[in-house]
C-alpha cells in the first residue's frame, strides 16, 4: 500500500490542460504544410514525382492530405522552398474536398454541422472499428484514454457495443475481409449517427492504395461526416477534431 501511495506521489498530476492552454509539439512533428506555390514549377514537379503517395498535384501545387502520410520527403526534396511542415496539428475537416490544400485551410468549427453539436455536444459515444488498420491509428486513438489526454473529461467515450454508440470511428483501408463486419457494425448503431474517417488509410487507402484487397475509401461505403488525416493522426489532431466538430 505504501508503495502505491509513494508511486502516486512520484507520478504527480499529468493531465494536459489542452485545449484551455495551447500545446506545442516538437519541431520535427509534421502538421499542416505551408505551401509556396510561387516557387519554381520544376521543383513542384520534382516533388510530385518523388511523393510516394501521389499526393501532390504538379499542375496546381496542391497537396491532398487525405493521401499524404506526412513522410516529409517533399519538404526535404524542396529544401523547404515548396513545402514546409508546421507544428499545427489541427488537421480535421468536414469534407473530402477540404483535404486538398494549397496552403489555406477550411475552418472546421464553421463547417461543423450544428445539429450534431446539439445532439452530441454534451455526450458522444463512439464505436471504433479497425478495418485493416496497421495498429498505429488504433493505438494513437486508444491513447486518448490515458491520463495525459483523458478524453472522458470532455464527455466523449469509446464504447464496446455499437448499440450504445452515436457513431463509428473507422481506421484502416477497409480490407475486403472487413467490409461486411464494418457495415454490420454501422447498421447496429442507432440513428442519427456520425461517421468519422481517421487516418490516410480510411480516406484514400493510405500506403496500400492500388491493392485490390482493399476498398480504400470509406466514403464509397458510408457518408463520412468528419475526416482526420495523418499516418497516424496525432492524438491531439483527433482530440482537436472531435472537440471542434462536436463541442
Amino acid at each position, binding site marked *: 500500500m505504501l*508503495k*502505491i501511495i*509513494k*508511486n*502516486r506521489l*512520484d*507520478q504527480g498530476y*499529468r493531465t494536459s490542460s489542452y485545449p484551455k492552454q495551447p500545446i506545442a*509539439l*516538437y519541431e*520535427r*512533428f*509534421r502538421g499542416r504544410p505551408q505551401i509556396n506555390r510561387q516557387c519554381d514549377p520544376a521543383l513542384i514537379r520534382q516533388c510530385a514525382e*518523388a511523393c*510516394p*503517395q501521389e499526393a501532390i498535384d504538379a499542375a496546381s501545387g496542391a497537396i491532398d492530405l487525405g493521401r499524404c*502520410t506526412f*513522410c*516529409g*520527403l517533399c519538404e*526535404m526534396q524542396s529544401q523547404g522552398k515548396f513545402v514546409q511542415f508546421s507544428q499545427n496539428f489541427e488537421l480535421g475537416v468536414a469534407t473530402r474536398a477540404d483535404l486538398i490544400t494549397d496552403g489555406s485551410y477550411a475552418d472546421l468549427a464553421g463547417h461543423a454541422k450544428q445539429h450534431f453539436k446539439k445532439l452530441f455536444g454534451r455526450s458522444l459515444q463512439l464505436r*471504433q472499428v*479497425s*478495418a*485493416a*488498420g*496497421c*495498429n*498505429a491509428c*488504433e*493505438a*494513437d*486513438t*486508444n*491513447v486518448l484514454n*490515458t*491520463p*495525459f489526454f483523458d478524453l472522458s473529461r470532455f464527455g466523449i467515450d*469509446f464504447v*464496446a457495443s455499437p448499440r450504445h454508440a452515436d457513431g463509428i470511428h473507422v481506421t*484502416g*483501408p477497409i*480490407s*475486403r*475481409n*472487413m*467490409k*461486411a*463486419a464494418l457495415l454490420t457494425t454501422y447498421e447496429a448503431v442507432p440513428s442519427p449517427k456520425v461517421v468519422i474517417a481517421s487516418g490516410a*488509410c480510411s480516406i484514400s487507402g493510405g*500506403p*496500400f492504395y*492500388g*491493392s*485490390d*484487397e*482493399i476498398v480504400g475509401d470509406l466514403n464509397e461505403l458510408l457518408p463520412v461526416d468528419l475526416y482526420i488525416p495523418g*499516418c*497516424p493522426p*496525432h492524438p491531439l489532431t483527433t482530440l482537436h477534431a472531435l472537440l471542434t466538430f462536436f463541442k
Partner: protein
Amino acid sequence: MDNLLQIANGEVVRRADIPDVSVETFGMTLAEFVRNGGFVVQFFAFAENGITRLLAVVRNDRLYVTSCVVGAEFPSLTGWVSEKFHMFEREIAEQYGIRPTAHPWLKMVRYHRNYSGADDVFGNDYGGEEIPGKYGCFTVEGEAIHEVAVGPVHAGIIEPGHFRFQCAGEEVLHLEIQLGYQHRGVERLLPTVPQRRLPIICEAIAGDTAIGHNLCCCQALEALAGLTVDVGARIVRTIALELERIANHLGDLGALSGDVAFNPPAAYFGRMRGDFLNLLQVLCGNRFGKGLVRPGGVAFVMGDEQRKLIAAKLEEITPQVKNVCDLLFSAHTVQARFENTGIVSREMAEDLGLVGYAGRACGLPYDARVAFPSECYAELPHNTNQMTSGDVYSRATVRREEIMHSLALIELLLQRPETTAKAMMMEERRLAADSLVVTINEGWRGEIAHCVLTGADGAIVRYKVKDPSFHNWTGLAMSLRNQGISDFPLCNKSYNLSYCGFDL
C-alpha cells in the same frame, strides 16, 4: 549440410548458387535439419516464367537456404516432421493453390484469392461474396460443452480477428484463432509498386513494429543496391528499434496491470509508453518512427539537440520505470494471477517454433540481435533471462528485463560520438539481378524476416514478409488449453500479437 547453402543476414546471394533439388530431397533435407533442432525462418512458394518453386530459409546458429521446383502438390512436412511447418504450408496452399498432401489440419490463413489462378485449395470462390471466417471451427461435443465466439469486431480499440473457445464450464478445452480480416494484400502489392513506396508500405505492415519491418526492408534494398550505411545512421536505427521495444513492452505491462484490475500501474505505464513514443517523435517527427529509416541510412539526422533531449528524458524516466515495475511485480495479488497462468512448456514452444519473448519465456534463448546481429548489435551486450516457466509471469518478467536492458543499450549508444553524414532521401536504385537477400531483425515481438528475390532485370519478383506473430499465435492458443476462460485477456496481453502483421 548437403543441399543447403549457408547465407548471412542481409547479404546478397546469387540465385544460381541456391541449391535446386528435387521436391523429395528438399523435404528430406528440411526434415533432417529440423529434427536436429533447426527452426524455419521462411518457407514459401514463388512463380516465375511459368515455373513454381518452394524456397526455405532455416536456422540453427547459422542461416541456410534451399529450393526446389514444385508441381500441384508436395508431401506435407507438418504431420511427418514438425508443427514448425504448419502455418507456412497452409500459407503456400492459400497463396499458390499448391496442396501439401497429408497436412493434418489444412485450413485458410487469410482468406484471399490465390496468386497463381489455380483452383482454390479450400474450394472458396473469392470472385463472389466476401467470405472471411467461412470455416467450420473444430468443435468439442458433449452435453456440458458450450462454445464462445468472439470477434471479428472486438470490444476495445483493437484490430479484428475471430476467436472460438470450446469450454466445459469455465475451462477452455480448445481455442481456435481464425484471422485474415486485416488482409491488405501486402505481398501481392510490394513487387508491383515503385521503390519509393516500399518503406512506406513496410512501415504499415504492423504500425507498432514500423521500425522493425522497415529496417528489414531497407536493409534488403541496401544489400541489393550495394549501399553502405554509416555508423552514425546505424546508431540512430538501433536506438529507434530499442525505443519501439520499450514503448510496446511498457504498454503491455500496463495492459496486464489493467487486466488484473490493478489500476495505478496501468495508468503510469500507459503514460510512460507515450513518453517513449514521443522520443521517436523527437527523432523523426512521428510517434511510431514512420519516415525515419530509409535505404542508405536515416531520413532525419540525430544531432546534439535530439541526443540531449533523449538522454535527459531517459535520466528522468528510468527510475520511474523501475519503481512502477517494482510496484506491479511485487504485489502478491498480481503474482497470484500471473503465476501458472497460460503455461506453454519448453517442449511445446520448441515444437511450435515460438520466437521473441514468447519463446524466451519458455527457455528458448533465441534472440536475433545475438544470433544474427545487424546494425550495432554485434558490439552491444545482450540480455539473458532466467525466468522460463512459460506462464504469464515469465512473459511479463522477460519484458520487464528487456525494458531495462534496452534502456541501458540506448544509454550506451547515446554516448557514441558519431553522427550520420547526411539525411537520406528515397531514390529509385538499380538492384542486383537474379539475387536473393534475407534480412532478419529482432523486433519487439521477436524475429522479423523479409526475403526479397529479384529477376533478370533486377526487378523484385517476390517479396516475402514474416512477422513473429506468424509463429506465435499458435502459442497463445496453446496457452489457453485447460485454462479458465476469464484468463484469456491476461494470456492474450502477455503475448499481444499482431493481427495485421500476421494478415499482411
